[in-house]
Structure formats: structure tokens, C-alpha cells
């Protein structure tokens, strides 16, 4: 099948949607499909993959409460139109079509089997309500809608109605399993040692970093070798100053790390700790730690409970309870047999989150919408309409 994927955000900037599109494209290629990805990209960049077509240079604009790197305008529109016309796609798959960028343009100028994936989950907002009116006619062109998480699905249902299917993000299992630990890590767990890992914004209360440091405070006296590896954006000095010196001395801060470094980091710890107090829709990081073969200790919020299958493939502790977390950590660090069991169960569970599996589900959607259809074509109606209201140039 010939698939045209459209990513609205700048290719060279790391981000969830970009990573999703890249992994999906590569999984589809591995399944033997032909793929072309259209994304805002700097054409002079050297490391662009061969399947990537540039939709133009990205510009930074404020959107939905943050700054997005997107591409739009008449030149971009003609590029998108040409890509659609010359692509000969069986199915067009746009990501985040409600973002003002390439996806919305592609949707505007194409007809035929079109699938859309929605990533964003935002509570009901005035902005989204305003977009609704503008976007509705375009969204009517979609043959199928996919949401990547339950909250994303709910957002979609709230704003646009209908009944989208849920296909979660995949995990590139092999990449995590292949990664090598950082030199000198994780060390030995005997004689009071052991390494814990934490990844995320440590200065955001919802991520629960303070619960972890409180638990560490109880453990450091008995465990002279205990260490904590932390990665993620935030003010490192302030965070270290806010905790007892005995705990701060055991922490290594990596700062903001790349995707490859994340794979390494997750292989470099004995236990991955997710003390989040809420606001997680899925917990992709848990599946990543599990793919890296690192047992997970997580708070028992719904999303984590689901991923860890009620504690069979990772340990759960009551949300916000530092004492319980300290106990759980000590027990697991002293019990290699139990860690091995969790590792085995985790490996079994994450297999179903692998990208090859997720891509097969997406292909099932493609097959459903392309049955009997003739393929994607240029929508000349919208071009006439654009000319009529003086937007022409494409």
C-alpha cells in the first residue's frame, strides 16, 4: 500500500508527534508498505531520512498555550497540493489536523480515503470551540479517526462528537533492549547499593519527584551505596538545594537528554520510579522502562495500574505515600529473584505495545477505509473555492 503521512510539527525538533510519525513510518516500511512523510523541514539538513518530503521551512507561532514550530502560507499550500497530486497514495494519514499546519492543508486539498490521528488532550476550551466551526467541514472528509490515548479520545468526542478508535502509541522495543548502560552504572545492588531512575520535569509537582526524595531520605542511612539517576528539564540547582544534603549527595542529574540517551539511561538503573500523582494518560515511559528490562515501581494511579496490570509486571505503591515507596524500594533492591520475575512479566506485557503490533493495527484501519476506494486525489473543488474568495495562488 502507498501511504502518505503528514506531520504538522517541524521534523528536526524533538517531540511526541514527530517521534510517533517517524516510528510509524519506519514500522510501515518494515511491513513492506511504501511511505512518504510530509513535514516542515529544513531541506539543507543532511540527516533527513529518504522517505521525508519537506513541506517548507517551519516558523514558530503561539498555539494552544505553547509555541509550535509549524508551516503554512500560500507557498506551503502549493507544495502540499503538489505532494498530494503526485504522490499516488492509496491512503492519506494526517496527524493533528486541527493544528494550523501541513495536516490541515493536506486535508483541505485532498479527497479519497483519509485517516487522521489525534494526539492532543485538552480540556474543553474556548479556542477549541472556535476551531470547531472552522474545522468541521474539513473534518467531515475524514474516513476514519484514531486517538492515541483515552484522554485524547475523550477530547475528540467532546469537541467533535463521533466514535474514534483508540490505537495507543507504540514503543520501539528493540531500540530499548539493544541500548547499552552508561559506563559505571548501575553498579551492584548488594551491600546497601542500588540505583534508582527518574525521568521527567522534576520541578513539576504532578511528577512526584518530592515523594521520591522523601523516600530516599529514609533509605540513605541504611544504604550507603544507594544512587538516583535523574533526567529531565528543570532548575537543577534549585531542586538540589531544596532537599537534605544527604539525599542530594546521592543524586546524579543528567539534565535534558536525547532519545538515544534516554534508552541508555533506562538501562543504567536497577529500578525505574514513577511517583506521579496524576495527569498521566498512558504512561509511555513505563512501557519504555519495561522494554529496557528495568523493573518499575509506580504510584497506583489508574493509567499506571493498567499498564502494570495491577502490579503483576511492576510494583505499585499508594499515590503520594513516601513511606510505602521507601519500603517497596528497599524490598525490591534486596530481592533479585523478585526483580527477575517482574522483568519477565514486563517483557511479556510490552510485546503488545511494540510498534510492529501498533502499525499492524493502523494498517487494519487503512484496509478498512480503502476497500473499494480508488485512492487519494487532489480536491479541485477547494482550489476553485480558494480562487473564488481570493486566496488563490496555488
Amino acid at each position, binding site marked *: 500500500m502507498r501511504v502518505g503521512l503528514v506531520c504538522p510539527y517541524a521534523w528536526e525538533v524533538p517531540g511526541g508527534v514527530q517521534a510517533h510519525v517517524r516510528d510509524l513510518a519506519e514500522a510501515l516500511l518494515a511491513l513492506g508498505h511504501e511511505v512518504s512523510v510530509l513535514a516542515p523541514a529544513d531541506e539543507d539538513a543532511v540527516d533527513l531520512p529518504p522517505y521525508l518530503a519537506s513541506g517548507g521551512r517551519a516558523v514558530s507561532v503561539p498555539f494552544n498555550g505553547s509555541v509550535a514550530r509549524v508551516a503554512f502560507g500560500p507557498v506551503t499550500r502549493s507544495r502540499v497540493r503538489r505532494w498530494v497530486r503526485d504522490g499516488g497514495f492509496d491512503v492519506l494519514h494526517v496527524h493533528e489536523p486541527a493544528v494550523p499546519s501541513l495536516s490541515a492543508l493536506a486535508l483541505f486539498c485532498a*479527497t479519497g480515503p483519509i485517516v487522521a490521528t489525534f494526539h492532543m488532550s485538552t480540556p474543553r476550551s474556548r479556542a477549541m470551540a472556535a476551531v470547531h466551526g472552522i474545522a468541521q*467541514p474539513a473534518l*467531515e*472528509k475524514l*474516513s*476514519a*479517526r484514531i486517538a492515541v490515548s483515552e484522554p485524547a479520545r475523550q477530547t475528540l468526542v467532546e469537541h467533535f*462528537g*463521533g*466514535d*474514534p*478508535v*483508540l*490505537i495507543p502509541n507504540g514503543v520501539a522495543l528493540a531500540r530499548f533492549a539493544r541500548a547499552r548502560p552508561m559506563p559505571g552504572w548501575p553498579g551492584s545492588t548488594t551491600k546497601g547499593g542500588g540505583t534508582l531512575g527518574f525521568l521527567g520535569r522534576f520541578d513539576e509537582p504532578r511528577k512526584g519527584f518530592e515523594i521520591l526524595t522523601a523516600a530516599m531520605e529514609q533509605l540513605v542511612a541504611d544504604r550507603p551505596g544507594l544512587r538516583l539517576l535523574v533526567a529531565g528539564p528543570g532548575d537543577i540547582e534549585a531542586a538540589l538545594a531544596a532537599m537534605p544534603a544527604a539525599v542530594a549527595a546521592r543524586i546524579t542529574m543528567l539534565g535534558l537528554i536525547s532519545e538515544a540517551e534516554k534508552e541508555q539511561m533506562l538501562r543504567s538503573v536497577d529500578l525505574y520510579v514513577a511517583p506521579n500523582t496524576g495527569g498521566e494518560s498512558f504512561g509511555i515511559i513505563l512501557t519504555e522502562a519495561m522494554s529496557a528490562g528495568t523493573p518499575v515501581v509506580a504510584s497506583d494511579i489508574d493509567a499506571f495500574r493498567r499498564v502494570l496490570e495491577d502490579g503483576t509486571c511492576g510494583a505499585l505503591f499508594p499515590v503520594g505515600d513516601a513511606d510505602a515507596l521507601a519500603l517497596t524500594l528497599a524490598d525490591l533492591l534486596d530481592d533479585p529473584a523478585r526483580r527477575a520475575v517482574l522483568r519477565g512479566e514486563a517483557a511479556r506485557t510490552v510485546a*503488545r505495545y511494540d510498534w510492529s503490533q501498533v502499525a499492524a*493495527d493502523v494498517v*487494519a*484501519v487503512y*484496509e*478498512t*477505509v480503502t*476497500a*473499494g*476506494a480508488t485512492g487519494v486525489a487532489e480536491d479541485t*473543488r477547494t482550489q476553485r*473555492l480558494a480562487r*473564488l474568495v481570493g486566496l488563490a495562488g496555488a
Partner: protein
Amino acid sequence: MTDVLWFVLALLLAGVYLSWTAGRLDRLHARVDAARAALDAQLVRRSAVSMELATSALLDPASALLIADAAHAARQAEGEARPQAESDLSRALRAALDQPEQLEELTGPVEGRQLVEELEGAGRRVVMARRFHNDAVRAARALRTKRHVRYLRLAGHAPPPPTFECDDAPPECLAREL
């Protein structure tokens, strides 16, 4: 004189808007038709795989009979009887396959494993195709209820497309969240 000009301009704009709406409706109806055809194809595929499973001699005769009967009825059913027949097939599949021993026995031999996989795929596609179809129907209906569409009969005289309502829940042992 300017009044007349304004009037003509307003008329023109209204005309453009109406023609655009009519085009939108057209496209939505075409989408409903395509989605309906896709749903048909997936339902037929599911009943075919069910029938193959029933006649494979891998199931015990009672389960085989149950599935064969439901699959046959689903394939024969037309019009209003169709959703009921498809629901019955879903129920029969659940009743027959949702026993731990059954699935174990069935997935032992290679051909059994293949059939179960195919059935799982067919079931998932039915769920998807039905959602896509009903989404299209809902969108078309929403536009048809707009006042200017109703008064000017932009949708023509055809009755609004019906949604396809049936029980398509797969057997639990084959279910994955969608």
C-alpha cells in the same frame, strides 16, 4: 441603484454558500456509501471466517454447529434483519470461544492458530468499519438538520442514512481495546 447592487451581491454570496453546502452534503453521502460498502465487506469476511472455523473439524461438533448456524444466518440476512443476525453471530462466537480450554485446544494446531488469528482480525475490522460508518452517518445527519438545508431541501428527498447498530463485541479471549 446601490441597493440593487448590494442585493445582487448578497444573492450571489448566498448562492455560493448554498452550492458549497450542497457539495459538502454530496461528499458526506458519498462517504456514507463508501463506509457502508466497507462495513458490508468486513461483515461478510467475518461470517466467512466463522464458517471456515466451524467446518474445520477443529471445534467440538456442538460449538461448530452453533457457529455455523449463526454464520449462515448472518450471511443470509438482509435489510432490517441484518443487525440482529450479526449480533447473534457475535454472541455465538463469544459463547463458543470464551472457554479457556476451547482456545487452548483450538490454537494447538497451526491451521487452528491461523484461523483464530484471522477471526480476530476480521472481528476488529468489523468494529472499526462500523464505527467509521456510524461516524459518517452522524456527520451527514448533523448537516441535514441545519435549517437552510432542510428548508431548501439541499439533501434531496432521500431518507437520511441509518446507522448500523449491532453487538460486535469480540470474544474476550480475542479482544483488544480499540
